[in-house]
Structures are given as structure tokens and as C-alpha cells.
């Protein structure tokens, strides 16, 4: 992976389309040609405001989708941009998910909130190639109906896989399931749980309880993958902010098999 060029210099990428999910979460479809995997990330920057690591939430022929939540200095400024404007990018960085690990298996994807972004590429893949997994289940949880992302995508996913869309709380008579993602885990049925595979991405507490839920129903540790989130200033193993134990989340992750990921204690 040695590069002789200056990895810190970003390139300009045009915003092709802005897809609004909620008031604070938009997907920016960026022009990009090159290899990229679900779960990898780009450092998105606007001069003067800084850089922020953002997961790839969709991969097109000449685009990548970056689903951005308006929570910080950089993302605040990104939300001032429109289709036709440009952002600086560098990347993709990190290992990303390898869909080969899930082919021919009973697959469960559990995502909490914006944690759906890094796994969306896997969901898209097995939605478009449903026969390549033995079965696919998506359990996606959001705080409230107003926080749900990718509503259009859910419509097509529901045709091709078992989708459980749930919210932490909603007004009465809501059409959504109400409850945490973890409560649906014991209800899942598997032909052979020792071979079943799972991907879990979301806030730290949600990941902790979801992986515990999977282990409790009989999943093997080696069949679970998680993706971690940390502060990253460089994305290339230099700045040190994302290090946990001997692991650099940006280089060795952000995707980890649970056998490794369970030891990443801050």
C-alpha cells in the first residue's frame, strides 16, 4: 500500500445530487471513478473548516454516495452546498466490508441510525443479487419515524429480503415497529446458526447489546463483523487519534471481525 505521492492533497469532486433524508441527514452523490468498497470512507473537506471522515453509503459507476449528518463544523458547511458545487475529497481509506464473507450464508445486518450508511453497500448488493446469500435479513433501527434514512431504498429492499424497520419511539398508531433492534434478534429463525453471519454497525451501546444478543442466540464470534467509528485526522495511520491498543481503526479497520473487534477497548 506504499504510495509515493502526497496523500494529504485532496481532489475536487462535484456534487451530482443531494438526497434529503431528514433535516440533518443528506446523501451527497459525488463524482468519483475508482475502486471503492462498502464500509470504506473518504476524508471530506472544505478549506477553512477542516476535514471529516465520512463512510461510503452507495457506489455507482462514476459516483460514490456520502451520507452526512449535520453535527460538526465541517458537516455544517457541507450542508450549505448544492448539486453542481464541489467538495474536496481524499480516499477511499480503510478496509471496508468484503461481500465474499457473506455469500451463500444466512446473513443478518443490524444497523442503528447513520450506522446504516457504511453497511448500505452490502444491503444494496444482496438486494440486487438476492440469490447469492441463502437469506438476508435487515434490522434497521432509528430514533423516531422522522429520523429514518433511505426511505426510497427500503421500498426496494423489502421486495428482496426480510426487512425489520423499527423506531425507538413513535406516536400511537404509527405504521412502524416500536422497539430496539435487539428485541428482534431472538425472533430470527435460522437453518444452521453456526454458519449464519451477521454485520452490526451503529452507536457503541447499540453494537455492544446487538453483538451480545447474537452471541446469546448462538452466533459464533467469528461470524460477526462490526465497524468502528473514531476521530481521524489523517485516515492513513499517522495522526494517532483512532488508535486503540495496537490497532489503527483507519488502516486495520474500520471493519473488524468480532474476534478482533471485541478487544478494541478504549
Amino acid at each position: 500500500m506504499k504510495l509515493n505521492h502526497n496523500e494529504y492533497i485532496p481532489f475536487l469532486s462535484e456534487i451530482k445530487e443531494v438526497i434529503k433524508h431528514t433535516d440533518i441527514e443528506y446523501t451527497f452523490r459525488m463524482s468519483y471513478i475508482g475502486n471503492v468498497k462498502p464500509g470504506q470512507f473518504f476524508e471530506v473537506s472544505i478549506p477553512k473548516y477542516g476535514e471529516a471522515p465520512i463512510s461510503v453509503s452507495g457506489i455507482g459507476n462514476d459516483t460514490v454516495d456520502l451520507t452526512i449528518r449535520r453535527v460538526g463544523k465541517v458537516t455544517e458547511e457541507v450542508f450549505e452546498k448544492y448539486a453542481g458545487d464541489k467538495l474536496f475529497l481524499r480516499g477511499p481509506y480503510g478496509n471496508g466490508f468484503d461481500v465474499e464473507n457473506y455469500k451463500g450464508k444466512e446473513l443478518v445486518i443490524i444497523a442503528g441510525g447513520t450506522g446504516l450508511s457504511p453497511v448500505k453497500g452490502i444491503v444494496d448488493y444482496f438486494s440486487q443479487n438476492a440469490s447469492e446469500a441463502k437469506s438476508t435479513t435487515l434490522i434497521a433501527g432509528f430514533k423516531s419515524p422522522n429520523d429514518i434514512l433511505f426511505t426510497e431504498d427500503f421500498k426496494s429492499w423489502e421486495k428482496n429480503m426480510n426487512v425489520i424497520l423499527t423506531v425507538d419511539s413513535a406516536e400511537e398508531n404509527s405504521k412502524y415497529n416500536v422497539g430496539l433492534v435487539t428485541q428482534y434478534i431472538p425472533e430470527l429463525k435460522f437453518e444452521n446458526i453456526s454458519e449464519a453471519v451477521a454485520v452490526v454497525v451503529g452507536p457503541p451501546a447499540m453494537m455492544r447489546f446487538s453483538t451480545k444478543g447474537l452471541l446469546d442466540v448462538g452466533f459464533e464470534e467469528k461470524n460477526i463483523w462490526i465497524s468502528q467509528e473514531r476521530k481521524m485526522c489523517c485516515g492513513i495511520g499517522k495522526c494517532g487519534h483512532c488508535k486503540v491498543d495496537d490497532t489503527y481503526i483507519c488502516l486495520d479497520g474500520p471493519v473488524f471481525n468480532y474476534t478482533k473487534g471485541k478487544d478494541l477497548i478504549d
Partner: protein
Amino acid sequence: MGYSLNIDNMNTVIKKWSESYLIYAPKCFEGGGTFSDTDVVRYGQIENVEEIVFNKKSDFSFKEVLLPISETLFYFTEDSVKEADERKKKAIIFLRSCDLHSVRRLDEIYLNNGFEDYYYKRLRENVKFILLGCKSSFENCFCVDMQTNKVDSYHASIDYDGESFLIDNKCSDFENDFENSFNKKQDVIPSYVTENHVKVNIPDNITLDIIKSKMWDEYDSRCISCGRCNFVCPTCTCFTMQDIFYTDNGKAGERRRVWASCMVDGYTDVAGGGSYRKNNGQRMRFKVLHKVYDYKKRNGYHMCVGCGRCDDICPQYISYSNCINKLENAMKEVNEIES
């Protein structure tokens, strides 16, 4: 090849070097210390050999020559960027054995760990190292136990015996300079420390269970998370990106990287308010284990070089070497809980 030079001849060599090199060495900045009327020894450019401080440990390491405290990466206007120019001259750094060992640690992170760092590499390629011999240990040093008291990877070494400068030269680029100026030729072995007052014992049975030890709790209140230990450390390499813009033209500015400290608030903050390792004890644990445990797991040798500067600088009199010596009991403590 070994040489002995008197002051005038040594200065002739240094003058010759300064034509093509910037020369960095530990020098005394009078009145620059933490307290009034105290001095500080830190790295700066020198023009003659008398400026080099031979008889004290430098309060700060040489690392700012290779990793500037604030380094401009590129300049930007609205939609274009221009890479920052590199230093025009090559550099010579005078440093002690522990610090020369730390160069390997800097190289590990900046040249090997995943990607090669463009800015570090272009400085590093143009640097030559001159070893300052250590006749005896300074306060808080523990280089012998860290096996960094001796080193071979210098271009030349220099010892001062009170009258002459003793040189062991290994660099062909320097050969003519010494051949033209020496007083006499003699075999020179750079002096090195054989015993430190401070001893450390790093147990080899450390596991991540050590996180659960109570030993870290005392640092919650003792440590004030000022980060000085990181900034004086010759092996700490972390940085944070920083964009600044010019007040006369808000559309132009530059992106820099500036030194960062894992002990200081904000180091792990993610957008939206999340952060990790909120207690100072947890930060102390993160730092100490990086220096003597997890870096070795990844790279095969310890990160810490035993210079003891962290102990010299701590305003709370926290001793890092003392902390290392608590690790053995901490492992016993957590193993007992487990069993």
C-alpha cells in the same frame, strides 16, 4: 575514521557544513525556562560548536526538526490547493543515543505504518545525524533498561573531553571536512551510559486485563492532562489537522498539522459529542501501554527509549518510569481477580 579536533578546527568544520546544511543542536535559551530566571535547553540552529550544550539533557527532543510543531501541508484558495514548499537546505542534527533510537520509531510510523508520509519523507531523506556521546546518565534517564544506551546508526559522533572534540566519522560526505581540519587521528569510540540510577522492569505477561487494575485510578486526580509529557517525548508522533484562513482574505488559507497529545481534552472527540477515555487515569494507561506494550505488539520492539524527559517535565511530579514499575503488580492484581 576517528579524529581529534580543537575548538577552532571543529568550528571550521561546522562553518563548512553550514554552507549546505542547517545545523540543529541542543542549545541553551537563557531565561526561556518554565520559572523566572531559569533557562531551557532545546533544539535550535547553531553556528559554532560552543553553542552546543554537552553537559545537560535537552528539555525538548530533536523531533521538531523532522516533525515541526506546526507544519503547513498546503495552501488553498476556493477550489485549488498548492503544496507547501520544502526546506531548501539539508540538515544535520546533533542528538544523543536515546534520541537516535527514537528516529527508528518516527520512521516506523511515518514511513511504514500503512502509507508513506510525503512531508516526513522529504525532510527525513535530507538529514544526517551526529551522535552526542553520554559520559554518564542524567537524572531520570533509563536508557540501559530500554537498550537504547548504545547506537551504531550515526553518520558521525562527537565527544568533548574538556579540550578537544573526539569524532568518529562514518559518512563519506564528511570525510574531506575532517581530513582537512583534524589535529590528530585516533581511534574513537563514542562514550555511552552503562548504568542509570532509574531502573525499569517491563513485565512480559501484560494482557489487556491490566486495564481493569486500580493502579490507573491515582492518575485521575494527580494528572492535570496538560500533555507536556507527550510534547517532550521523542517518540510521540500524533498530530491534529488545522485549517487557518487569512484575515485579509477569508477565501485563502492553509491546512496545517500541529502536534497533538493523547492526554489533552479533545483528542478523541468525534462530531456529535462522543469521546473516549474521559478520565486522566485512562489516558495515562493509554499512553503508558502504547510506550511499553501495544507498540511492541505491532512493531516488535518497545516505543519508549527511556530518555526520562516526561518525568523531568511533569508539573505534578508524576513519574512515568515509576508507573512502568507498577505494571508487574497490576498484572498480579488482575490475575487474582480473574482466578
